[in-house]
């Protein structure tokens, strides 16, 4: 009798586990090309100035999804990708998704000229000594992290992506609508 109860309990547990993991697996299958699950826990905080001298604190974005993007003007894919980030930012509710661009180790003139030529509506933080980039350890430039409203890093995209493509817009829209 005890054995039978144990077997039933194991079966129930198995069904429960299966039902819990199914949505996760489904979500993984739906990840657009180039986006990977990247659950490393709480996002390392940082404070940086933007090109207008405004101090930004990553913690201040709690409650919103964050599109955290590391870039540099010398990186070819960054040049191609930046206009698509601007287009994405224009198609997403800015109250639900906060765009945080972090330039790696360049001066404000370089950043200003670059953004002015490829994505004039975007602004960027300046990581002039590269230390914030070092803490975040993107494995290449450009790299984007998606941080959830609780401040947890959830996804990573290495390399340039066509962010204004319908696939990515739908993916991000579904994230922020949940």
């Amino acid at each position, binding site marked *: 009798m005890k054995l039978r109860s144990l077997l039933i309990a194991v079966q129930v547990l198995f069904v429960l586990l299966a039902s819990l993991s199914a949505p996760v697996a489904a979500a993984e299958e739906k990840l657009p*090309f*180039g986006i*990977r699950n990247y659950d490393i826990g709480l996002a390392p905080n940082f404070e940086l100035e933007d090109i207008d001298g405004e101090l930004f604190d990553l913690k201040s974005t709690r409650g919103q999804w964050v599109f955290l993007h590391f870039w*540099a003007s*010398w*990186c070819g894919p960054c040049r191609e990708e930046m206009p698509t980030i601007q287009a994405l930012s224009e198609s997403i509710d800015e109250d639900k998704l906060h765009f945080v661009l972090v330039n*790696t*180790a*360049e001066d404000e003139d370089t950043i200003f000229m670059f953004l002015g030529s490829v994505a004039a509506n975007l602004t960027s933080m300046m*990581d*002039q*000594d*590269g*230390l914030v*980039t*070092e803490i975040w350890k993107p*494995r*290449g*430039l450009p790299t984007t992290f998606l941080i959830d409203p609780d401040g947890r890093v959830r996804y990573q995209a*290495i*390399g340039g992506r066509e962010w204004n493509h319908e696939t990515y817009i739908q993916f991000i829209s579904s994230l922020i609508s949940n």
Partner: protein
Amino acid sequence: MFLNALLFSAATVAASPKFPLVVNHELMSIEFAPRKPEQMGSFYEARGFPREMREVLKQQCFITVKIHNNSQKKIWLDLANWQFSVNGKPLKREHRDVWKQHWQAMNVPLRFQSTFRWTLIPETLDYLPGEEEGGNLVLPFTKEKITLDAKFATGENRDGKPIHIHFEQLYCAEDAL
């Protein structure tokens, strides 16, 4: 006119197999583009790198590497599994941490250390199906042909059949005389 066109097309055909160098495998491809010291020097000078740093870099062999995962499974890059040799003798590639120590010893400003680091190919990277990424390899300069033996793990948990690449035609580019 015709001769010029012929010469041009012949040169194009002759040059195309050599640059970039391409290694094809059924699951992946690797492109190698050897960079001339002058080219790299100009790149880093344009980024404001100090002369002392550029002088060190000009002595190195830069090869831009682009890896493309053509398969439906993960492919794992780990540069620790890349062995370089010249005439059968090992050619040691310095880890990015060694470069960092070198720049620190030279008191190179952090921003230049950072930019240098991000031009390097990652030490490790998991390539998703269809993904293409790369960066620069930095090797000691040599005029000889370089042999590369590289091993890649495959599969979600690195438990798939490993990929072995053996390539004997790698080289360092030199400036024109």
